[in-house]
């Protein structure tokens, strides 16, 4: 049967049968880039967010340290503004083709892809992390400082774990944005799900049919990931209740610890 005689559903089935593998491979590419880049981007975002919230102590910090901090903060600010502020598609072209043309630096297309998406995610996450940090009760920072923690220690042990909880919905947003935004990487030859769609639509001129398929695949991917992230949130919240410790048992526990030299230790 020729495609012109098929109805909408038959066409979808035809496309799936013919290009099913391509769609799946495209989805795999999309997911791989999105997951890896979101992870790296979150790391970047945390580092940038933490550095940007280091307080400057006019009195105590040496001029050199203050100067350095200022320069670092300015560079990070510029990074955030530059990458947040310009379209990723153009960044990809500049990094992949521009570097090659001007400096003879030839990044592989995969490295370029991970690089572009990661630094973009990092720029957005930096702002989200900033929001997460300001939403943690300032008393937590005071508590940490009072027992002698440095800014970085306090951030790592006390503030960030709470900030992360607050921005989990945001991390989900970013992952989902990335799943969709990797489509711009078709300019550097990455055949992601959306590029597969464009190819199929261009080969068979069946835009709506192919679009329906990719929407379903996108939805599946985003639903699964957002469900997983919700689970992580639940896990982070921990039990609503706690178990009372059998005080008789603690003595035993301590003894066991001493014997095993630290098995089951915490902190």
């Amino acid at each position, binding site marked *: 049967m020729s495609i012109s005689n098929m109805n909408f559903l038959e066409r979808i089935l035809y496309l799936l049968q013919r290009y099913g593998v391509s769609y799946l491979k495209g989805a795999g590419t999309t997911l791989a880039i999105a997951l890896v880049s979101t992870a790296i981007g979150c790391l970047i975002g945390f580092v940038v967010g933490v550095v940007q919230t280091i307080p400057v102590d006019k009195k105590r910090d040496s001029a050199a340290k203050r100067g350095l901090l200022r320069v670092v903060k300015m560079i990070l600010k510029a990074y955030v503004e530059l990458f947040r502020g310009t379209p990723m598609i153009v960044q990809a072209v500049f990094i992949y083709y521009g570097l090659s043309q001007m400096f003879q630096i030839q990044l592989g297309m995969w490295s370029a892809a991970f690089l572009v998406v990661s630094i973009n995610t990092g720029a957005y996450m930096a702002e989200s992390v900033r929001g997460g940090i300001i939403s943690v009760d300032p008393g937590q920072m005071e508590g940490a400082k009072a*027992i002698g923690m440095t800014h970085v220690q306090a951030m790592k042990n006390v503030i960030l774990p709470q900030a992360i909880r607050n921005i989990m919905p945001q991390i989900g947003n970013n992952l989902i944005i990335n799943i969709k935004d990797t489509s711009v990487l078709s300019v550097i030859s990455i055949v992601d799900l959306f590029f597969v769609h464009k190819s199929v639509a261009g080969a068979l001129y069946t835009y709506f049919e192919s679009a329906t398929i990719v929407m379903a695949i996108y939805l599946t991917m985003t639903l699964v990931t957002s469900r997983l992230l919700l689970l992580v949130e639940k896990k982070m919240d921990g039990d609503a209740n706690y178990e009372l410790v059998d005080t008789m048992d603690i003595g035993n526990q301590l003894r066991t610890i001493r014997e095993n030299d630290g098995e089951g230790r915490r902190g």
Partner: protein
Amino acid sequence: MLQVSHLQKSFGNHAVLNDIDFEVCKGDVVSIIGASGSGKSTMLRCINLLEEPGGGAILFHGQDITDPKVNVPAYRAKVGMVFQNFNLFNNMTVLENCIVGQVKVAKKKPEEARESAIRYLRQVGMEPFLNAKPRQLSGGQKQRVAIARALAMEPEVLLFDEPTSALDPQMVGEVLSVMEDLAKQGLTMLVVTHEMAFARDVSTHVIYMSEGVIEEEGTPEQIFGAPKSDKTKEFLARFRNTSI
């Protein structure tokens, strides 16, 4: 070992501390009493550098810790603090709250830290709650964990901001006896308190603050027995009427 001189602090136009002067020796238990809003917490926070003093000097073992060259985290590790509103770490259990500083700051071994954390928690009767999160505790329980957390750091000086405000009389008794023990072992303490009985019976020295200045200071006998200033007399009036 701790000397405060000409300490000043204002928030905007609002002068909260004015020319505060006093000295604390090793093993002293100094009670700071005064009306609500008179600047007691602010003073403790300045000593711990959580607020930047607006002027004056704070000498610790002779070194001015307002000096820019001082390593502030290292200083704070030696000066413990129990906050008026506890500031327990919400992301950790009771036990972890008392361990984290020992491991990360004092660099103790985790198992050692765990043991001493449990020891201090037992002293304040919080042993059954090792695995609870702060949000699952009652007010008094939080306060006791905050005390245990500060003690576990084994500091040289301890700043207490109303450490028994949320406790029942029985528990107050137990916490005070822990504090007395510590004092005997040579721990220096500055205690902001509204428990006049504590100020009178336990401390070696009493400071009465009023509107950002030290109105009067001296031994408990002087302050409670024969206050000089009229303000002090008025402040202590109710306590002396009802409880002595």
